[in-house]
């Protein structure tokens, strides 16, 4: 009894308590408002980013064709034509360039001797009418050249030849989405102006991000350029990155958490791994250039996907190690004790209990690190990713380009069409990142569920 009386004197009661409570609640609500404001700023920034990209990627464009598609085929859709018909069009409009198409698409010999050697040599391994084998390309008639093209090229290739070489769509002026929506009258005026120089000019609404953009290779012509090469390059590089960084990173984390005795050397190593995670990515680029591209050229063969993948792997290695360490540390010690308690060895405990329990955290960390690597530009520029390349990478030793490089290069160009396709490529990159993150979430849920049964 006496204890509670003396406490009543020490602690505020009645009106004093109410006043104190009001003050405490006020303080809470101020902080609450401040935090919701921070969230609002973040969301606005995100919306601004998305709008900015979408704004450039869609909108009207004044375009002109060299030859109206309707002049080639009724309805103007060349997609329905077969190889014969496409070759006839090429022959009609670009007769003199037929040998060039043969050289660019079919020749297996050096361009300098292409016109001097017989077809049997210059087109060795290709299908073409056998009776032409002994002749050089310049000895062929136009019809025979057309026959060679028709025999060897796929419909897709022929169609894109017709689109680029005959129809030759030109973008005279692209407009942003905002301009398209709100400044229609100005655009119409500019169209009239354009019609004076280019009687074929027309206005069309264009999504720069479309299926062709995804599947077309890089090109110096913005209307025909696509991201396929860059996208494949990015996927290849990331594949190598993860293949290298995941096992090494998780292994290092296991060592540091489970085996390393906490002595001075190991503490120093841990601290430095943490520091490495903060090193600017360009430094990793310089490291990759010096070690992977130059010193280890006999393995990596220079500026290849392998060099880039390993460089990015080194870049995200510390992040993976740190995240995996956290995940391993978070595994409750009761699980380890239970495992040791029934006579498991250390490795059995790690393999059967610790790693599965830590895996959701490890995977999340790895995929987030991967997302970071996908967007990295600086190290790739330093180790010398190709800025212009049109052949798809097919092995780790291929030269390559990557999405961020492609975007960087397109935005650096003066013509505004390139800015539009850069925006489209940014959308592709963002979607790729979203896919990665979604995978991370799904994997984590799946694992968590399998752990909880």
């Amino acid at each position, binding site marked *: 009894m006496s204890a509670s009386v003396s406490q009543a004197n020490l602690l505020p009661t009645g009106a004093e308590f109410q006043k104190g409570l009001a003050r405490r609640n006020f303080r809470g609500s101020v902080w609450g408002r401040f935090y919701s404001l921070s969230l609002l700023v973040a969301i606005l920034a995100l919306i601004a980013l998305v709008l900015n990209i979408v704004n450039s990627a869609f909108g009207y464009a004044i375009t002109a064709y060299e030859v109206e598609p309707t002049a080639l085929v009724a309805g103007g859709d060349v997609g329905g034509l077969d190889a014969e018909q496409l070759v006839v069009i090429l022959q009609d409009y670009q007769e003199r360039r037929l040998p060039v198409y043969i050289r660019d698409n079919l020749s297996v010999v050096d361009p300098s001797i292409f016109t001097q050697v017989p077809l049997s040599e210059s087109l060795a391994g290709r299908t073409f009418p056998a009776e032409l084998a002994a002749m050089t390309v310049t000895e062929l008639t136009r019809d025979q050249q057309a026959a060679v093209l028709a025999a060897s090229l796929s419909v897709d290739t022929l169609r894109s030849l017709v689109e680029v070489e005959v129809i030759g769509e030109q973008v005279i002026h692209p407009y942003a989405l905002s301009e398209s929506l709100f400044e229609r009258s100005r655009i119409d005026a500019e169209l009239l102006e354009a019609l004076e120089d280019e009687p074929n000019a027309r206005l069309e609404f264009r999504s720069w991000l479309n299926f062709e953009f995804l599947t077309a290779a890089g090109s110096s012509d913005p209307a025909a350029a696509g991201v396929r090469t860059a996208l494949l390059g990015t996927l290849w590089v990331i594949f190598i990155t993860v293949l290298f960084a995941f096992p090494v990173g998780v292994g290092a984390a296991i060592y540091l958490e489970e085996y390393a*005795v*906490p002595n001075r050397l190991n503490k120093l190593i841990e601290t430095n791994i943490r520091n490495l995670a903060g090193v600017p990515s360009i430094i990793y680029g310089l490291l990759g250039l010096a070690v992977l591209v130059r010193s280890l050229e006999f393995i990596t063969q220079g500026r290849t996907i392998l060099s880039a993948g390993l460089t990015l792997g080194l870049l995200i290695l510390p992040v993976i190690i740190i995240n995996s360490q956290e995940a391993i540390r978070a595994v*409750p010690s*009761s*699980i*380890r*004790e*239970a*495992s*040791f*308690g*029934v*006579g*498991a*060895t250390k490795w*059995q405990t790690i393999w*059967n*209990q610790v790693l*599965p*329990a830590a895996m959701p955290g490890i995977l999340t960390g790895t995929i987030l690190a991967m997302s970071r690597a996908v967007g990295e530009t600086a190290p790739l520029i330093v180790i010398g990713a190709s800025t212009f390349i049109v052949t798809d990478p097919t092995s780790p030793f291929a030269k390559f380009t990557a999405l961020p490089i492609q975007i960087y290069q397109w935005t650096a160009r003066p013509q505004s069409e390139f800015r539009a396709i850069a925006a489209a490529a940014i959308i592709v990159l963002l979607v790729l990142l979203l896919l990665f993150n979604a995978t991370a979430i799904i994997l984590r849920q799946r694992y968590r569920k399998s*752990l*909880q*049964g």
Partner: protein
Amino acid sequence: MTQNGAYAIQLKNVDVFYGPKLAVSDVSLNIQTRRITAFIGPSGCGKSTVLRSINRMNDLIPGARVQGDVTFQGQNLYAPEVDPVEVRRRIGMVFQKPNPFPKSIYDNVAYGPRLLGVRSKAVLDEIVEKSLKGAYLWDEVRSDLKKSGLALSGGQQQRLCIARTIAVEPEVILMDEPCSALDPIATQAVEDLMKILVKQYTIVIVTHNMQQAQRVSDFTAFFSIRKQEETPGKENRWGVLGEFAETTELFSSPNSEETERYIRGEFG
């Protein structure tokens, strides 16, 4: 094979240190085969520490060190040629908080045998059934062995942990407050189980519950705390074995006043 009534485990002048700190000092006691021995005493007196030194669980704590002899069937457990993995297989452990693996009931019980290299499905099935029956859990879970061990009630989880322990056929089972996280009914089930298990196994149990010690154990070891002022304001505390006797004897006529006050519930 030692005879019923012989000593399974002998501790002689055992000191345990955590780093430089002495945790328990000079513990000597003999644990009889196929009997239940209870460790009681106030919190922090080193019951868990002594228990964990018996199956070398303390090896897992960095800096923990055991001095003196812990002998199991005549073999010093801390001799250099002894592998702690084998010790823990033969001296199993059940923990205070039920800690099933985040796996199915079946996989929980089959875990130990699988570690030993048992792969045959038929053999594993048999071991799982036998162990779950041994832990008196079989009838409750037989229809749903695929269910996660974590989906069981606390008492069932603790019996699952016991099944997991007996699946590797240990000779001794150490239990560190196995009922402290359980309700009275689940506690009853585990106590009943201990009384059955003791026909086959040597059991050592740490408990804070005087009634439990009296209900289940044959022998009781009472640990107490010694204090020494090293410098003013800084006190050293370590645990010692206060009294060790048959349970009925210790509870009816304790040797020391300290024991008596503790079992009457005056401190702890």
